[in-house]
Each structure stands twice: as C-alpha cells, then as structure tokens.
C-alpha cells in the first residue's frame, strides 16, 4: 500500500493545481477529515488510516483474513435500518415477481435478476440525493427501484407497456429516468462506465465553469458494474481519467464472482479488483457486499469524498447472485456448495437478524414491511398488466429530439410534418 499512496500523491499534486479549484465556489468543510484524502495528500507511505479505510473482508480470496477485524458494523438509527430493510425486500420481491412474470410470458428478451446483491444497490443508492446520478448495467431493475423509480413504472417497462418509465421503448436492460437521474442501464460490458464518468465530468463542469452547484457540493455519480467488466479496457481508461480530473464518481464493482459462466478467478490475473484503484492513484476498497451496513459505511465515505471534490473511489463489493446470469441461463457451472455458502449469508436475513438483535424493530414490524412490499409489487403487476401497449404513433417518436432529423421528403416538406408520421405509418 505504501507504493500506492506514494503514486497517488505524486500525480495528484499537479492536477489539483491545474483543475481550477481556487476559482470554483468552495465545497463544504470537512474535506481534511477524510482518511483517504489525508493519506493521498500527505503521500504518507506508512499512514495507518489507509489500511483501516481499506476494509477488506473477503471470505473467498486468500490472504485477506487479517483485515476482517478492521470492519465493525456501524450503528444505524431505527429509521435508517427500516429504510434499508424495505428497499432490500423490495428489490428481492420485485425480482422474484419478474421471474414469475417472465415464465408466464409477460416479459421477454433477456431478463437479468439482482437477487443476492441487494446490499450493494441499497447500501449505495440510499445515500444519494435526487440530483446524484446512477449508471447501471443490464442488471438494472433494482438500481432503478433504489433510486426511487416507482415499482409500477419499472414493471410496466418490463411488460413493454406505454406506462413504463421509458414507455416501453427501453426494456429490461435499458432503464432510464431523467427525474431520478437514472442515466440508463447499459447492455454492453463496460459501456456504462464512460457514460457515468461523463456525468461526473458534467457535475464538475457545472460546478467549476457554470458555477451551478448546490450548497452540498458536487453531484455524485455512482457507476455499477460487474467483475467481468473489470477486464475491459474502458474500465481502465475511465479510472485513469476520473482520477486525472478528480471527478465526483464512485466506481462500484459488484463482484458476484461469475461473468455468466466464466469464473472471476479464471478470467482475471489478479482477482483483487480493489487493488486497481491505488494503481491509478485513487483509493481502492474491498467490502463484504453481503453486509449492507458495511457497504453503507464504505459508500458513505466514498460518496462524501466525491461530493467534496476529492475525486473518485473504486469499491469492490464481494457479492453473489442467487440466480443464473439471466433467466435463460441454465446455471450449470456454479458449484452447489458455493451457492449454499452465499445463500447462508443472505444480506436480507442478516439485516433482519441485526435489527432484531439490536432492538431497532420487532419481528412483526418487519413482517408488516414485507406485507407492504408484497402489496406494492402485486399492485405493480396489476398496473402493468392493465396498462395499454404503446400506440403505433410511438414508433417514430423520440428517434431524434428534433424530429426534423428525419429530413426532407421528396415532396419538399419535412417528413415529420407528414400526418402519417404521427400515426407511425409513414415510410422513413
């Protein structure tokens, strides 16, 4: 780690001087309280706090056992605990319902479910503001839900209905919601990372050039992606530029150990992904992605760091998906004992146990949350089922923000002025 922090300090200093921080409005105080930041700024080769911040708690990768003790569960209030519990249960119940609906033919194409990884989405996104951005992958339903997109809008999108959050034009792998700053689910490996980095660039630009930031500091972007993506060049390109320009972004690796049927250990020369953060001069953190409170603790620091303008953080969440890669995946390569190992560590069960043991809520209170979520998801299905299919007129809408982009027809008029255009029957 000594080498990593030295590298960071060496390269950060000139960048900080160039990035116009003096001209920009001041960010909230407390910047220097960050252990990451302090370590990076001092370039201290033996700063003890850095080791603490890198809350390594892997139980799969060898050699990290010593760091287990470093991560202790932080306290959460009753309200916070119940919010986390509700969001995680929503993610789980929603996805289980998706599987049912997929097998009943209500949704189609590729459907990738999030079961097992809820602690990551909830642990990060519940700390974000409305103005903060989330960029996701093809496994994006639960990120959308955590960010506040109504379950009925997500379900209707999955049903391909006009009431969906993208009016049925996006689908399972492409959830967008501008009011929630959900900037998309991206279906290609690595594709979302540069887009997220660009959103973070825009936040910094708005702060420094347009002087438009809010009083809380920079808007933060959280980019979610998997272990398989970390072998893709765009990941490395963006770690470099995000740190070079100190962009307000958190790179969150949901390491579920499997890229479809390719084991992470069989695909990656050094499977400890978090180590790639220090290699680019940013903190790299490994966290138990099956423990929402640990995720939340790491997320809080990384998000605050980004908001203060101190740059990106790479967080590797070790998690597991309880289902196949997609609903079409026979899931034959993962060993039963591996599955049962992680099933026993179900993050929702663990949080429930914690809440009851810490007397934050009673079992019946949690039951009533579960009942409420069941009702919400049932209602989402009824809403989606009863919603109309997109009308034909939608076919030609939204290809361009300016429909004159369809050009001029042989009659000399803009094609979008053809009445058949709004009916969706024009030849284009």
């Amino acid at each position, binding site marked *: 780690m000594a080498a990593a922090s030295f590298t960071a300090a060496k390269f950060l200093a000139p960048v900080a001087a*160039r*990035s*116009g921080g003096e001209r920009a409005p001041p960010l909230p105080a407390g910047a220097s309280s960050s252990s990451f930041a302090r370590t990076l700024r001092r370039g201290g080769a033996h700063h003890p706090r850095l080791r603490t911040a890198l809350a390594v708690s892997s139980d799969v990768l060898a050699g990290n056992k010593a760091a287990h003790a470093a991560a202790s569960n932080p306290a959460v209030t009753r309200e916070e605990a119940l919010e986390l519990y509700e969001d995680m249960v929503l993610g789980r119940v929603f996805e289980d319902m998706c599987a049912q609906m997929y097998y009943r033919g209500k949704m189609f194409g590729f459907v990738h479910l999030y079961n097992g990884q809820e602690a990551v989405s909830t642990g990060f996104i519940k700390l974000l503001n409305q103005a903060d951005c989330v*960029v996701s992958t093809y496994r994006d339903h639960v990120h959308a839900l955590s960010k506040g997109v109504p379950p009925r809008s997500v379900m209707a999108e999955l049903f391909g209905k006009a009431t969906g959050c*993208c*009016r*049925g*034009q*996006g*689908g399972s792998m*492409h959830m*967008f*919601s*501008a009011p929630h700053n959900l*900037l*998309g689910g*991206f*279906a*290609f490996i*690595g*594709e979302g*990372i*540069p*887009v*997220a*980095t*660009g*959103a*973070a*660039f*825009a*936040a910094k*630009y*708005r702060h*420094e*050039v*347009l002087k438009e930031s809010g009083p809380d500091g920079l808007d933060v972007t959280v980019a979610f992606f998997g272990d398989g993506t970390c072998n893709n*060049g*765009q990941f490395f*390109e*963006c770690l*470099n*530029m995000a740190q*070079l320009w100190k962009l307000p972004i958190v790179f969150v690796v949901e390491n579920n150990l499997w890229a479809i049927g390719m084991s992470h250990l069989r695909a990656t020369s050094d499977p400890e992904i978090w180590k790639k953060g220090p290699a680019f001069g940013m903190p790299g953190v490994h966290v138990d992605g099956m423990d929402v409170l640990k995720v939340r603790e790491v997320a809080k620091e990384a998000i605050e760091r980004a908001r203060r303008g101190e740059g990106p953080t790479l967080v590797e969440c070790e998690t597991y998906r309880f289902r196949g890669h997609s609903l079409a995946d026979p899931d034959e390569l993962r060993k039963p004992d591996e599955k049962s190992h992680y099933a026993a560590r179900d993050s929702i069960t663990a949080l429930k146990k914690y809440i009851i043991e810490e007397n934050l809520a009673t079992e019946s209170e949690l039951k009533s949350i579960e009942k409420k979520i069941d009702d919400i998801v049932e209602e989402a299905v009824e809403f989606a089922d009863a919603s109309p299919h997109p009308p034909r007129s*939608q076919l030609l*809408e*939204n*290809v*361009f*923000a*300016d429909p*004159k*982009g369809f*050009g*001029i*027809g*042989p*009659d*000399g008029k*803009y094609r979008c002025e053809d009445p058949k255009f709004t009916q969706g029957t024009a030849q284009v």
Partner: protein
Amino acid sequence: MLGAARRQLGSGPMLGQVLRRLRPAAAAARGYSAAVKEMNVRDALNSALDEEMSADPSVFLMGEEVGEYQGAYKISKGLLDKYGPDRVLDTPITEAGFTGIGVGAAYHGLRPIVEFMTFNFSMQAIDHIINSAAKSNYMSAGQISVPIVFRGPNGAAAGVGAQHSQCYAAWYAHVPGLKVLTPYSAEDARGLLKAAIRDPDPVIFLENELLYGESFPVSAEVLDSSFCVPIGKAKIEREGKDVTITAYSKMVGYALQAAEVLSKEGISAEVINLRSIRPLDRDAINASVRKTNRLVTVEEGFPQHGIGAEICMSVVEESFEYLDAPVERIAGADVPMPYAANLERMAVPQVDDIVRAAKRACYRAVPVAATA
C-alpha cells in the same frame, strides 16, 4: 506518450505534404457572386467553434491534442488560451473512454464537441456513438437527449495506407438517431458546424483534411456570428440541364471540375453538394433529376451499400419515369486503401472518372480504353 508521438508522426508531416500537393483551387468553377472575402476551411471551423463556445458556456471541446498542441490539424488553435483547460480538454489516447465521457456529459446537460484526430479512430469508440449516443433518446422515450458533435477529418488522406484512409459517411448514415454532415466549402464548414453544435441530437461532422487549407470566397452573411446552414438541405453548387452530379465533401470540388470539363464538350451538368448525408435532401436530388433526367452519384467511400446506392434508390422510388439513362455510380474502389501513390490514385474517384460517367449517362461515345 509513445502513442501520441506515433500519431503525430503520422499526421504532422503529412499535413504539410498534403497542402503542397493540393491543386490550385478551381475558384472560377464556383458560382459565388457576392464574395467579399476569402476564408479557408480551417479558419471557418475554428471561428465556428470559437463563436459557439463563446455563445454557450455549456459547449466544450475534448479530444486528443485539442488544447496545448492546438489541434493535430490546428482546428482548435487559440481556443485553449481563450477558454481555458476546463473547456478545451486534452484527453489521453482513449477513444472509447473519452467518447463515452462526452456522451455521458451530454446526457447530463452539457453540449460536448468530441474531436477525433481522424475519424478512423472513431472505430474504437463506435459503440458509444451508436449504442450510447444515437439510441438513448429513443430508449428513454425522449427523456435523455444527447446534444453532442463528433467531428474530425474523414475520408481518403494521402499516403497513409488502409487504416488511416477511408470515408465513414455511409457507416454512420446507416444509423437512426444520428445526423451526418459533410461540409465542402468554408461556408459549409462554418454554417454546418454551428448548426451541429446547436442541434439537440448527436451529429457526426465529417471534415476532410485535404480541404482544411483550401480557401473559398465567403459573403458577409457567412461571416456573421448568427450564420447557420440548415441541416438536411443540399446546395446546388452549379446549375445545369443535362445531367445531375451528386457529391459531398472533397468530391464536390471534383464534381465542379468535371462539370467545367463537360461544359467545354457541350454537356451542362448540375452539381449538388449534399452537405447532409443523413438526413438526405431527397427533394433537391429528385427535383434535379426530374429536370436533367440523368444522374451520376459521386462518393469517396466503398461502393457497396454506399451513399450512391441510397440516392439511386430514392430516385428509383420517386422519379423512375423521369430517368433517361441508368444511374451511374462513382465510388472508391472496393479495396482497402493501398499505400503506393499510383495505386492510391486508382482507388479514389478522379475528375476524369466523373467526366466519363456523365458522358455515359448522356450516351456520348467514350473510348473503350477509358471505361475500365
């Protein structure tokens, strides 16, 4: 740095050679009447960037060597000094990364201009251009528009071999959600670039390095900061009655030279500068063909599934009964660009090729040896 140095070696000295190789501009062939001043394409692009960045603080320029180096082809000269490193952003050599960053910034309220040192390098970023930029407004049902310009030199350069020498007009024109512009003159370059930057959708802006140093007459109107050329409108560069020649980018100049040669042989050619490949001005093309009854399409790119094929189809659909001769297509040879100068010349359309095709369309005898 090795990568940057390598590319500079590829593009820097080449630029000088190219400029020396350029033929004197055939200014007489251009029908500008109220010309008050000359401007080269490089200055036209530079002034358009400058004015639009000045008008809208959400516009910024990013790419390799756009800042301190002043642009690999000096298109962004002076902009770093004027707008600073926050708005004229030198990126590492990472096309996929920085193109995606541009797209993400456009999603989130800015108006980026992404410069590709040449469009050949856009192949490394084509996923972001097509999947992230062109499709997002549709996938998000209009919630996420992507006001971004991807610009840089395109088309056959000189002596740089297959990977650095090809035209991407047809590639990008295939994609719904993109607009593809191909300026020829200084007027085109200024007016279309300003329109592209103001446009709410992703625009592919294909320049040509061999035209950067070429000067064109410009009117006072063109020099006005409010000047814009509408996207999707072609320009009749030269009126004629016997045959229509469509062309874009550098080939417009060749088509004008061909028209000059043809006029000496009694053939009056109408030259259409397409300006916009997508949307394509089908109205202007068909109106011209209905007048001349003959059509020659000219493009630098590969022939198969190209711009000429699309234009031909439009004419077959709309004006078939007006055609008095088969449509002639002049395109680049269907081969990767060769390096040797003689082979390279054979691989891209020449003025003579256009002249011969126009004569064929007019049923004038063409020597057998010249039809190969």
